[in-house]
C-alpha cells in the first residue's frame, strides 16, 4: 500500500507503448535558429572550471578541495588573515529557500539582504517577530539563508536527526549561489545533520514566474517586486482569494485538524493528571463530608471545614475532630502545591467540584480512544475546563479554534496564530534541536551525497521524492 506511487510508475512503464516506426523514422523539423539564450547550459557549454566541478566530479573533488581549503585556511591564519563575515558575494538578485517554510530574499548590489518575504504560512511563523527579520535583513545573503535554516531547525520544520534536503533557488551570479550552498553544507556538517542542499540557478524571469510575480526580465525589477512583498503571506494570500469566506481562508492556513490534534495530544499528555485531580477533589469532598457530619463538629448548621476553621480555635475541638480538621488541612495544602490553586471557602470548593463534573470521566476516555472532530467540537468548552483545572491554560489555543467573521478578525487571528505557533513549535522542537550530535566529516557528508545520487539519480530527484 505504501508504495502505490512506485507501483503506479511501474505499471505505467509496463503499459506505455514503444514508439512505432513512423514516429521513429520521422525526421526532426529542425529550427533555423535556436531562439533565446538558454538558461541552463549543457555540459559541453560549461566553462572549463565548471566542467571540472560538474556534479559527480564536484563530489569527488570535494574531499580534496577540503584538504586544499584546510591548507589555505591554515596559511591564512598563519599570516594573520581572517575570513570576511558572509564571504565574497556581491551580485544583486534573489534567492529562495524551501524547507517547508518557504522564503524569498532580495539581494542588493553588495550581496546583502534588502528584503525578506514569506512564501507560505510556515515562513510567516518564522518571520512573525521583527527581531528575527532583523537577524536576516542587511546581512550577507549566505548568512541570512543560514539563519533562516537554523530557525526552521529550531522549530522542527527541519529535523536535524533525520536525513532530509533543503532547496535553494538562486537568481544571482554563480559564485554567490555556490557560496550559499557551501555555507549551508558547513552548517549541516557542524550540526551533524545529513541534510543536503539542492541547488538551482534560474533567470530573473523564471524566478519571478516561480514566485508568482509579474515582472520584466531584469534583476532590478525582480528585486523591487520582492521588496514590495512587505505584508505577511497570509495577508497576500487572502487578497488573492476574494471568493473565499474568512472562515475558509483562516482554516486553510491554521488547519483546524492540526489544532484538534494539538488538543488531543494535550489531553493525552495530561489525562493522568486530570484523573488524579478528580481523585484528589473526591478525597477532599469525602473529608469535607466527614467534618460536616462529625459528632464533635461545634456547628449545627453551615459546619463546613472553612466556616468552622474561621469561627473556632483549634483548642476548642475534641482530639478526634481536631485530627479530622488537620487531615483536611493537609489535603488542601497538597492540592494547592499540586495545582497552584487555593480553596478558601465552601463556595470555592463547590466551584472546583462543578468544574470536575464538567465532563464525565467516561466521555473523556471515549474522546481519547475515538477522537473525532465532532466529539471534540461538542465538548470543547469542557475540555478547556478540565485542562484549566490542572493549571494548563489553553484559552489562547481555544481562541484560535474560533472562526473569524471579518477581514480585521482574520488578520488579527492570523497574527496571533503565527506568534503562538512559533512558541509552540519552539517548545516542541527544543529537545531535538539541542540534542548533541557528532560533527560530520566533510568526506562523510560527500559520501552521503554520492550515495543519494546513486540511489535517486540526482539530488533534484531526491528532493522530488521527499516532496511526495
Amino acid at each position, binding site marked *: *500500500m505504501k508504495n*502505490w*506511487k512506485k*507501483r*503506479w*510508475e511501474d*505499471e*505505467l*512503464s509496463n*503499459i*506505455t*507503448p514503444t*514508439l*512505432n516506426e*513512423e*514516429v521513429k523514422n*520521422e*525526421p*526532426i*523539423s*529542425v*529550427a*533555423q535558429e*535556436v*531562439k*533565446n*539564450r*538558454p*538558461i*541552463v547550459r*549543457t555540459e559541453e557549454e560549461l566553462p572549463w572550471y565548471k566542467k571540472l566541478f560538474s556534479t559527480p566530479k564536484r563530489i569527488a573533488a570535494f574531499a580534496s578541495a577540503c584538504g586544499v581549503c584546510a591548507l589555505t585556511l591554515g596559511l591564512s591564519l598563519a599570516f594573520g588573515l581572517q575570513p570576511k563575515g558572509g564571504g565574497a558575494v556581491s551580485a544583486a538578485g534573489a534567492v529562495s529557500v524551501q524547507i517547508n517554510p518557504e522564503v524569498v530574499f532580495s539581494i542588493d548590489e553588495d550581496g546583502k539582504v534588502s528584503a525578506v518575504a514569506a512564501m507560505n504560512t510556515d515562513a510567516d511563523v518564522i518571520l512573525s517577530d521583527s527581531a528575527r527579520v532583523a537577524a536576516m535583513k542587511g546581512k550577507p545573503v549566505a548568512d541570512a539563508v543560514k539563519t533562516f535554516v537554523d530557525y526552521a531547525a529550531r522549530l522542527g520544520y527541519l529535523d536535524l536527526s533525520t536525513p532530509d534536503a533543503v532547496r535553494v533557488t538562486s537568481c544571482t551570479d554563480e559564485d554567490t549561489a555556490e557560496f550559499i550552498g557551501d555555507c549551508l553544507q558547513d552548517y549541516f556538517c557542524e550540526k551533524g545533520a545529513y541534510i543536503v542542499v539542492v541547488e*538551482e540557478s534560474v*533567470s530573473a524571469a*523564471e524566478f519571478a514566474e516561480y514566485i*508568482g510575480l509579474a515582472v520584466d526580465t531584469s534583476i532590478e525589477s525582480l528585486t523591487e517586486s520582492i521588496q514590495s512583498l512587505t505584508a505577511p503571506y497570509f495577508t497576500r494570500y487572502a487578497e488573492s*482569494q476574494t*471568493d*473565499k469566506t474568512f472562515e*475558509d481562508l483562516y482554516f*486553510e492556513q491554521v488547519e483546524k485538524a492540526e489544532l484538534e490534534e494539538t488538543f488531543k495530544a494535550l489531553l493525552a499528555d495530561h489525562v493522568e493528571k486530570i484523573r488524579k485531580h478528580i481523585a484528589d477533589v473526591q478525597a477532599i469532598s469525602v473529608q469535607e463530608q466527614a467534618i460536616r457530619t462529625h459528632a464533635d463538629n461545634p456547628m449545627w448548621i453551615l459546619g463546613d471545614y472553612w466556616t468552622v476553621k474561621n469561627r473556632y480555635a483549634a483548642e476548642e475541638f475534641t482530639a478526634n475532630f481536631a485530627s479530622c480538621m488537620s487531615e483536611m488541612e493537609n489535603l488542601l495544602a497538597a492540592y494547592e502545591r499540586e495545582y497552584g490553586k487555593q480553596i478558601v471557602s465552601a463556595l470555592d470548593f463547590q466551584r472546583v467540584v462543578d468544574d470536575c463534573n464538567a465532563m464525565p470521566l467516561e466521555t473523556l476516555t471515549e474522546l481519547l480512544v475515538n477522537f473525532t472532530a465532532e466529539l471534540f467540537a461538542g465538548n470543547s468548552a469542557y475540555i478547556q475546563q478540565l485542562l484549566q483545572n490542572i493549571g494548563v491554560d489553553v484559552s489562547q489555543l481555544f481562541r484560535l479554534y474560533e472562526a473569524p467573521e471579518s477581514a480585521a478578525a482574520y488578520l488579527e487571528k492570523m497574527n496571533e496564530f503565527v506568534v503562538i505557533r512559533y512558541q509552540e513549535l519552539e517548545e516542541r522542537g527544543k529537545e531535538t534541536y539541542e540534542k548533541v550530535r557528532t560533527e560530520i566529516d566533510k568526506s562523510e557528508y560527500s559520501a552521503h551525497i554520492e550515495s543519494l545520487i546513486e540511489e535517486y539519480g*540526482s539530488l*533534484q530527484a531526491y528532493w*522530488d521524492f521527499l*516532496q*511526495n
Partner: protein
Amino acid sequence: MSAKEMDALLRKIAEGDNVAFEQLYIRTKNGVYAFLRSYFNNHADTEDAMQTVYLKVKRGIASYQAGTNGRAWLLQIAKNHALSELKKRRDEVSTEDVEIAIEPAPVEGTVTDAMERVLSQEERQIVTLHILWKYKHREIGEMLGCPTGTVTSKYKRAIKKLQEYLKEVE
C-alpha cells in the same frame, strides 16, 4: 525530470538530435500516458494518441522556445491532441452509427484501474500532474483555473479515496 533537464533535451531535439528525442520519450512517456489516459480512459486510444503526440513533438519542435517551460509545452501538445480527437469522435457519433470498440478493462487491483474507478477526470489530472509531472498545487491551480486551496483539497481527497480503494482490493 527537472525543468532544466527537460529544456536541455528539447534544445538538443531542436538541433536534430534523435538520441535526445529517444531520451525525452523514455523520461516523459509515463507522464504523457497517464495524462492522455485521463482523457481517453482506455489503453488503445491512449496508445494511439501517444504516437501522434510524439510525432507532433518531432514536427513542431521548432516552435519550442529554449529556456521556457518544456513540460507545459509537451503537455499542451498532448491536451490539444486529446481534445481535438475527442471532438472529432463526438462529431462522428452525431452523424453516423459508430461501432463500439470493446476495450479490455484495466487489471483489477492496479493503480491505473483504481484511478479510473474512484477518481474523476479532474482528480486524475491533478494526481498525474503533481506526482508524475512534479507540478506544485499552485501551478496546477493556474492550469485548471481554480484556487490553490481547491487543488490541495481535491488532491488530498483523491489520494485518500485511492488509498482506501487499494486497501479494500488488496
